[in-house]
């Protein structure tokens, strides 16, 4: 029988003096995953952007539960977005979007 896919939602904070579009942000994330783990690793991550607030510098992404640590490492390796100095920090990780927003509000 096919195994049910378990996913994890990550709330992220973008630390920079600049604001970035969602496209620029996701390009940086994909590039970091590709650089560290290659195309095979990136294909396993199932990365998707769920929510993005450029003004507040907040983002929510989704990944597979097996690749959370991999994505965390890739996000930590980001030092630039659109050639501007930036850092991305994981605020919280959750199994459902609802629980994630609940955790952020707390």
């Amino acid at each position, binding site marked *: 029988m096919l195994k049910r896919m378990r996913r994890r939602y990550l709330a992220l904070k973008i*630390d*920079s003096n600049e604001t970035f579009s969602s496209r620029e942000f996701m390009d940086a994330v994909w590039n970091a995953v590709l*650089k*560290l783990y290659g195309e095979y690793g990136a294909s396993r991550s199932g990365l998707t952007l769920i929510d993005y607030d450029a003004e507040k510098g907040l983002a929510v992404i989704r990944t597979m539960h097996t690749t959370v*640590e*991999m994505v*965390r*490492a890739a*996000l*930590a*390796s980001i*030092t630039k977005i659109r050639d501007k*100095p*930036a*850092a991305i*920090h*994981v605020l919280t990780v959750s199994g459902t979007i609802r629980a994630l927003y609940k955790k952020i509000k707390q």
Partner: protein
Amino acid sequence: MKRLYADLHLCPSLKDSEQVESMIEKASELGYGLIAMSLPSNVSEEKIQQLRNICKENKVEFASRADLKPQTSKELLNSLRKIRRKFEIIAVMCESKHVARQAAKDRRVDLLNFPSTGFRKRFFDKAEAELASNSLASFEIDVKPLLTLEGPARIRLLSSLRREVAIAKAFHVPIVISSGASSELLMRKPRELAALASLFDLDKVSAIEAVSKNPLAIIKRNREKLSPNFVAPGIRIIRGGKDC
């Protein structure tokens, strides 16, 4: 009980007090309970106290750290004699084999660090690990080069780190992961440092210990040694005076 995290290697420019303050604030925001800053060996007691006060305001503990970069083992011994009792942490950047061996066997050295770009200057081999495990010195890994290097240089660094971490684990040498950050944007959360450690095959439990238990053990041991009541390991003065 909540785990306490430590970053033993922040390197702000001490002349820029704004940067120092913002990095301390950031460390507190990122969830660190203790930080150590690399200080020059001639730093005044007032400066250390000033940094301690800023940290206290931000609810972070501060530990003083000196980074030694000796050219010869004799120079290392001289520096250790002069400054050991002044700092809570002594780290040695081992740029030659003689210095690396001397640092590994000297009980006054807490952290062994190796150049991140000079791959022929990484002397953490089995002999070094055996000496370090007997003297309780820890192997320090700075994450900053992993973030700033790219391409072949990063690949070579990761490959060296993977080999060295395996040796350190085999000889039970404690591993300490530090940020080595010189600016706010190069600072990472403890869990993020631990996640980056997976790149050189350090398992999750050991990686978390490398940012919490191992650095805190060094601080605890050294604070005990630097206390005026310390006599020898396991022996300290409890009470003094005529009634003893």
